[in-house]
């Protein structure tokens, strides 16, 4: 498909020459996001500078029926920002201003191109922070966070992006504008904010976001516990939860990941550990002290052979260093790796981890496990060597791990999104009726189907006519035999 020349001319005139890219060399920069296996070269990339610019671009796209894809920093891991060949990429990179800091309301209003960490930086001096902290927070943008409903290590206590967005300006796919919410919570009517957050850029383009920022806690304490086995570390997690303690983060790493981290950044984790648990607690002093004592007791009771605590920023950073570098560290022990993102109910973690071990053995590929243990969000890293022809086996293994998560009553994705990567897997978690209902909702926003097409919902063109086997939905399984 080739766009009418008049289309580019019109956009150049409106946005300025330099904000419309059509040189093949430059277009290639936009051909993929963090999921580099999916690529497509767009026909045009536009860089609007304002809500009005975005409206103008989308009106033109709507009139000419040209598909468009919004793009932030391009750090997404599910291909949600993969361009449509022949379509337009709308980069929000220029819309990167913090518009208002209103700490009396505990709100910050930003454009979508502002990075996650910039929000915290803007309010830190006043003792506030922005809670969702995806590991790409230095570069990923709030617009992308809104699209993906991003989480992070600390969402166990503080919640996800959807719990921190109070207002959005949304340009609908036909160019019309709608303001959802504001600085107050719980506006009247259906929760459209909740629908748009996490919709992966398929319902329109967000051009302004009102965020809730949180008062920094009195104290933060970080504990690191070394265990001989994953089962023992898992038992400690269950013990902490059963005690009624709500840490801000509980992270777990297995032997392989610890080994990789040691090689990469030498965090000095307990020698010989088969599992390392990182637990962070924050809040008022007395509560944190009580909880730390309990967590220490529980870890020891579960077989921790070494415990360290950090009370200042430097020591905390050291404990976190290995965890934060875990993905990148895999490069030290494998030429290629694929990050899977699945969720299981926390209590099913031990059995699912054992299943992953079996699958790893039967596929003859190593799997490193580093994950948010508190909320059952697994990030198995499937290690392979593409040059040795292991790519297909790695893909199969990653799929089998997802099946294990779904069989345990979990989800296809906890934070990376469906995007292109998992659109064809959606029928394994949702029935045709569920998916058709999703389509109906999408059509209400985008009746002509030009807004990030091919993402989230499987299409025959993308996935072939035969969808994967449907597994009974978690809600359906519960004492119910009523698929209608």
């Amino acid at each position, binding site marked *: 498909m080739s766009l009418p020349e008049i289309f580019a001319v019109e956009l150049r005139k409106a946005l300025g020459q330099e904000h419309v890219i059509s040189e093949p060399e430059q277009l290639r920069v936009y051909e993929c996001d963090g999921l580099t296996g999916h690529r497509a070269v767009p026909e045009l990339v536009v860089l609007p500078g304002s809500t009005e610019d975005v409206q103008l671009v989308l009106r033109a796209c709507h009139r000419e029926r040209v598909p468009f894809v919004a793009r932030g920093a391009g750090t997404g891991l599910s291909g949600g920002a993969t361009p449509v060949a022949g379509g337009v990429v709308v980069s929000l990179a220029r819309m990167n201003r913090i518009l208002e800091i209103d700490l009396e309301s505990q709100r910050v209003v930003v454009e979508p191109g502002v990075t996650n960490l910039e929000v915290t930086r803007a309010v830190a001096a006043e003792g506030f922070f922005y809670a969702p902290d995806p590991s790409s927070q230095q570069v990923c943008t709030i617009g992308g966070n809104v699209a993906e409903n991003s989480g992070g290590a600390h969402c166990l206590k503080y919640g996800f992006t959807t719990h921190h967005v109070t207002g959005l300006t949304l340009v609908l796919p036909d160019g019309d504008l709608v303001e959802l919410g504001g600085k107050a919570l719980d506006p009247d009517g259906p929760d459209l904010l909740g629908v748009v957050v996490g919709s992966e850029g398929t319902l329109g383009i967000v051009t302004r976001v009102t965020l809730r920022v949180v*008062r920094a*806690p009195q104290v933060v304490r970080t504990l690191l516990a070394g265990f001989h086995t994953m089962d023992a570390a898992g038992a400690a997690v269950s013990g902490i939860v*059963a005690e*009624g303690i709500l840490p801000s983060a509980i992270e777990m790493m297995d032997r392989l990941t610890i080994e990789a981290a040691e090689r990469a950044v030498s965090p000095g984790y307990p020698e010989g550990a088969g599992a390392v648990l990182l637990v962070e607690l924050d809040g008022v002093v007395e509560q944190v002290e009580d909880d730390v004592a309990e967590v220490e007791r529980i870890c020891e009771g579960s077989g921790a052979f070494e415990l360290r605590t950090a009370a200042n920023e430097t020591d905390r950073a050291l404990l976190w260093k290995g965890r934060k570098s875990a993905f990148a560290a895999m490069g030290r022990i494998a030429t290629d790796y694929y990050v899977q993102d699945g969720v299981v109910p926390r209590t099913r973690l031990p059995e699912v981890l054992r299943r992953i071990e079996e699958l790893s053995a039967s596929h003859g590929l190593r799997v490193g496990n580093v994950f948010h243990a508190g909320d059952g969000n697994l990030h198995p890293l499937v290690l392979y060597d593409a040059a040795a022809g292991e790519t297909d086996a790695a893909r199969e293994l990653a799929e089998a791990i997802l099946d294990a998560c779904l069989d345990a*009553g979990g989800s296809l*994705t906890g934070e990376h999104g469906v995007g292109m990567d998992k659109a064809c897997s959606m029928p394994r*978690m949702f029935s045709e009726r569920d998916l058709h209902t999703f389509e109906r909702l999408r059509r209400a926003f985008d009746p002509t189907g030009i807004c990030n097409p091919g993402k989230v919902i499987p299409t025959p063109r993308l996935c072939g006519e035969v969808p994967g086997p449907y597994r009974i*939905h978690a809600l359906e399984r519960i004492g119910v035999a009523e698929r209608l």
Partner: protein
Amino acid sequence: MPSVSSIEEASGLLAAAHAEGGSFRIGDDLTTDGLSRILEHETGDLTCTVEAGVRLSALSAVLGKTSQRLSLDPPGDPTIGALLAENVSGPLRHRFGAPRDLVLGVTLVLADGTVANSGGKVVKNVAGYDLARLVCGSRGRLALIVRASFRLHPLPKATRTLVVETDDASTVVAQLLRSQLQSSALDVLHPGRVAVFFEGSERAVESQVASAQDLVGGSEANLDVWDESRRRQAGAGGRVCFEPGRLREMLSQLSEGIVRPAAGLAYTRGEQPSGSEPQSNEAGDRVRELVRRIERELDPHGVLTG
């Protein structure tokens, strides 16, 4: 008045109405009172899945046996379906959010009888569109809610309430919100009082109350003040959203009311003070037009009259 007792029955009733031009007002001439099973309570996962006709009190009784709760305390004793459809919350809104913040997944019956699931029963999940949040606040216009999963919290080991008598509630609130105290509820019982609720370990709530008293004065009270807050909320004539930072301006325009300052919510006698959100009728109209587009897709024949 049909009260459905199975999802098949609900689906059949709605499909027939869809085909034959019938209509229903959910909660009025179609209820889920017969869908009253608690299907699952995973204590170790702090989640539960229940049918929509379960009353909040019945659920709380079951969860309480393992020292857990659904952290929602709206006035009255709504069914889970009504709780979601109204997205109604109580004083605990301050810390734990509204139903939309704690719901993990739903099963819906659409107006044409389609049974659709969204979300799941795990606390972290971004697969598919969030229909569970979509129906929060939809007041029975978008679909019949038949089943829902929720995130739970442990019951606190100790609780304390502080009440501050004041003619300058907005200053008291600002001081508390600026502090690093972590309260579970913070209400203005306008005019004249601010109530704060602390939950946690014995030592922690004691020190929080002491710190709060140092900051804003006041004296300890029992839980009655929260009952009063819920009662007055239920009896209010209107509900207003406002910018939390404009609390002073808001209070000055209200004769009385229950105000949740951090959320920017006020339950009033029906006044519409200036400065409330949405800030223009036009903005409100655009949102309503988008909602109508969703209604037309999900319920093209207008079966659900809300």
